[in-house]
């Protein structure tokens, strides 16, 4: 241990309560955090990276205990400190920011007051001095009109602004350690870029030590000085960022890096001489929020003159930031939302002009896969029921439907016996496979996938994307793929439509859109992708590329 060591974690083992899927959340973990460095801790969900951060903060849940090892902060053993001193450390010397800026702030308290609280309990400043400091902090994280913003409630702020408030709060008493637990995962790419820059900036200016937890190697490439990779509670690799990123040693690290979706992916050009399956023409949709009999509400334009065509066997990617109207278009096509005007032609028939009963037969041709596999499957129904409900509703015999469901389960890479089990018995990736099987059960011609992999870990993400890619070739499916992640869109889509504020600002073949973007907004989005400067080392061949190559040769 040297003078500059801020955190010294030695042989840390954290026990999970009995009955958990493994005995230790973290096992024999040793690492240090030096002054003036950003240490990225990488791993998939359940790898123990968040647990480690919580242990440092003294925020472990009651059922989870540190059983051996120690955490030292500038020489003081954190774990043996009395509660009072731990509180002084927490928020005082070590500060933390969290993943979800939407829920991490108290919704009923003005943001200024929430920052003020920290100052009140960690400093002897008087009211006026604290107020001045709050304004200064808000200004230092780049928030506009800090004196006005101080009096706002969190719900008035955007996600990025809230994360800035969280950072201001963490910096309130000039801590020397900042723990950031996936602080940009819930943000849009452009916002992510700004927040990453802010963290890097502040870290350099104040010479802090930052422990940055993430699962995204793009983000790692962007800001890390050193990288620690964790798997199932163990540290498998630690070293300088340049070393780990370009010459990963541990197989798990290589596997993680291989799963990272890459922007310029070689794929064949889609030949457009096939039939159009679906054509959207000048679709418009405006949502009216609030308002009453006499007072007009707020208007949100989610669709403004949207037109696009999906051909037989084509995958069209709809990309854009949250609130750009991507999902509104997807939902309009499935008939979950009624647009204000425009036409949606499915094989020449305008779906919007149809009555409910006349629309019904078309439902089976257009199916949807939703974002959150934890919320989109009914927890009280067996997987078999979930898959067969659609076909049975369309007059299929129950037994035949169940047989087909089992076939579909094997098709999506699950065991046929999964039909008798319930959704909670499956992991997130498996559930998304079930969702896909459910959608395929109706033998749709068009699949709408609304952010189908954004709730999954990178390696699982890669598997599900591979599955979708494989299925579309085998079943000659057309697909509308909605995503906020351009890297994923680049990997799976033939055609890309970029949406901004309810408009399609650019549409074209993926290669052209990514290789030679015409619209300024597309360039902004591309520019914001984390880790552009880093290319995956040659010897770590991405799994997805390999499978694509296999398919092409077959």
């Amino acid at each position: 241990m040297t003078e500059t060591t801020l955190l010294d974690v030695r042989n840390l083992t954290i026990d999970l309560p009995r009955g958990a899927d493994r005995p230790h959340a973290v096992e024999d973990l040793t690492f240090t955090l030096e002054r003036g460095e950003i240490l990225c801790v990488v791993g998939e969900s359940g790898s123990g990276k968040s647990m480690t951060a919580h242990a440092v903060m003294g925020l472990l849940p009651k059922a989870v205990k540190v059983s051996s090892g120690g955490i030292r902060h500038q020489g003081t053993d954190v774990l043996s400190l009395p509660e009072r001193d731990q509180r002084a450390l927490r928020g005082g010397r070590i500060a933390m920011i969290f993943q979800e800026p939407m829920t991490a702030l108290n919704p009923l308290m003005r943001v200024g007051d929430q920052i003020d609280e920290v100052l009140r309990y960690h400093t002897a400043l008087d009211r006026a001095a604290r107020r001045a400091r709050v304004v200064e902090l808000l200004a230092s994280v780049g928030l506009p009109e800090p004196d006005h913003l101080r009096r706002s409630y969190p719900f008035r702020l955007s996600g990025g602004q809230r994360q800035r408030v969280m950072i201001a709060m963490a910096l309130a008493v000039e801590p020397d350690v900042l723990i950031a637990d996936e602080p940009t995962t819930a943000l849009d790419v452009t916002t992510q870029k700004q927040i990453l820059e802010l963290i890097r900036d502040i870290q350099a200016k104040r010479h802090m030590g930052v422990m940055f937890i993430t699962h995204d190697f793009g983000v790692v490439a962007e800001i890390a000085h050193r990288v620690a990779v964790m798997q199932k509670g163990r540290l498998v690799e630690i070293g300088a960022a340049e070393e780990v990123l370009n010459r990963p040693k541990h197989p798990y690290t290589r596997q993680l890096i291989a799963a990272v979706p890459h922007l310029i992916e070689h794929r064949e050009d889609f030949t457009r001489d096939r039939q159009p399956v679906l054509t959207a023409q000048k679709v418009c949709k405006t949502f009216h929020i609030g308002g009453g009999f006499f007072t007009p509400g707020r208007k949100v334009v989610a669709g403004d003159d949207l037109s696009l065509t999906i051909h037989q066997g084509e995958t069209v990617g709809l990309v854009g930031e949250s609130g750009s109207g991507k999902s509104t278009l997807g939902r309009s096509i499935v008939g979950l939302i009624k647009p204000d005007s425009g036409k949606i032609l499915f094989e020449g028939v305008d779906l919007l002009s149809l009555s409910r009963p006349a629309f019904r037969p078309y439902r089976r041709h257009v199916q949807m896969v939703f974002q959150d596999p934890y919320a989109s499957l009914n927890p009280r129904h067996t997987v078999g029921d979930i898959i067969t409900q659609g076909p049975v509703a369309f007059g299929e015999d129950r037994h035949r439907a169940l047989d087909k469901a089992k076939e579909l389960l094997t098709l999506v890479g699950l065991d046929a016996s999964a039909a008798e089990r319930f959704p909670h018995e499956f992991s997130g990736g498996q559930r998304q496979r079930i969702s896909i099987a459910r959608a395929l059960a109706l033998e749709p011609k068009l699949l709408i996938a609304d952010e189908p992999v954004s709730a999954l870990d990178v390696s699982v993400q890669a598997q599900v994307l591979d599955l979708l890619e494989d299925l579309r070739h085998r079943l000659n499916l057309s697909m509308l793929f909605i995503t906020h992640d351009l890297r994923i869109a680049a990997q799976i889509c033939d055609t890309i439509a970029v949406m901004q504020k309810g408009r399609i600002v650019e549409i074209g073949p993926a290669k052209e859109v990514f290789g030679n973007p015409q619209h300024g907004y597309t360039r902004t989005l591309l520019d914001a992708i984390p880790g552009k400067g880093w290319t995956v080392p040659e010897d770590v061949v991405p799994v997805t590329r390999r499978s694509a190559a296999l398919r092409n040769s077959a």
Partner: protein
Amino acid sequence: MPRIALFISQRLVKAVFVVLAIAVFNFFLVHAAPGDPAAVMAGEAGAADAQFVEQLRQQFGLDRPLYEQLGTYMSKVVQADLGYSYRQQRPVFDLLMDRLPVTLSLTLTAFVLALLGGVALGTLAAMRAGTWSDTAITVVGLTAYATPIFWIGLMLILLFSVNLGWLPAFGTETIGAGYTGWDAFLDKAKHLVLPVTTLGLFYMAVYTRLTRASILEVRDMDFVKTARAKGLPEWRIVSVHILRNAILPVITVAGFQAGHLIGGSILIETVFALPGIGRLAFEAVLQRDYQVLLGIFLLTSVVVVIFNLLTDLIYSLVDPRIEVAP
């Protein structure tokens, strides 16, 4: 705050129409029930012939067509004249004003104590979830909730009045004692202890359960973790961050129950022989005393409307996301 003032004034204007509509509705509701006061009075007088009943009806105006009766009623209501009870030989308004203080002192005290006690106990139970104090609070709450309210009243009388002789069992004051000033107040307060406890226990059980459940939900939210990460002391986390966010459902139910403050205490008033609105209503139903019934209905609806308005206001004060929109 002009926005709040605008909200209140608009709501009050709406409230006037709501109350008038309720008055009309009540009028028809009461007249839809079979029997009328004339028939009941005649029946009580015994050996009354049809002519006598007809004479009574004429005297009370019950022979007029319904819409004419409604017209008369409504024109009086808008002048705050609730009519005259021939049974009691007194104006209805005076009758209500006589009884109102008894009921309000009982129900309001019980309500406020139950709310404070319930929130405090619920918080305690939730923050110590799984320990013996949580179990004890939950068991006591469940018992208070599940036991018939009049039975609790009777048992309390048996224990504290009959066996221990500490507290009076019924009435609102010691008759003929001639207390004045502070003594009179103390005497009245003593009489209220048992009925307030009986009624309050029930309400408190509801608030305890509600608060506990709501806090357990809020306790694990992200912003509570943020508050811990800031190094705040535990009491501050509980009071400022958790409780304030957990209190909304409690306010909803409290506002709902507050609307029942006038009519919800019939049982208690009966067990403890308190001359309140609840018993007045009960007697008025038996005697088909239309004027009194209508008066009570109107009073109740006014109370409900006022408490709804209050609940909405408190809501917007507690939660900035809820805006007061007229």
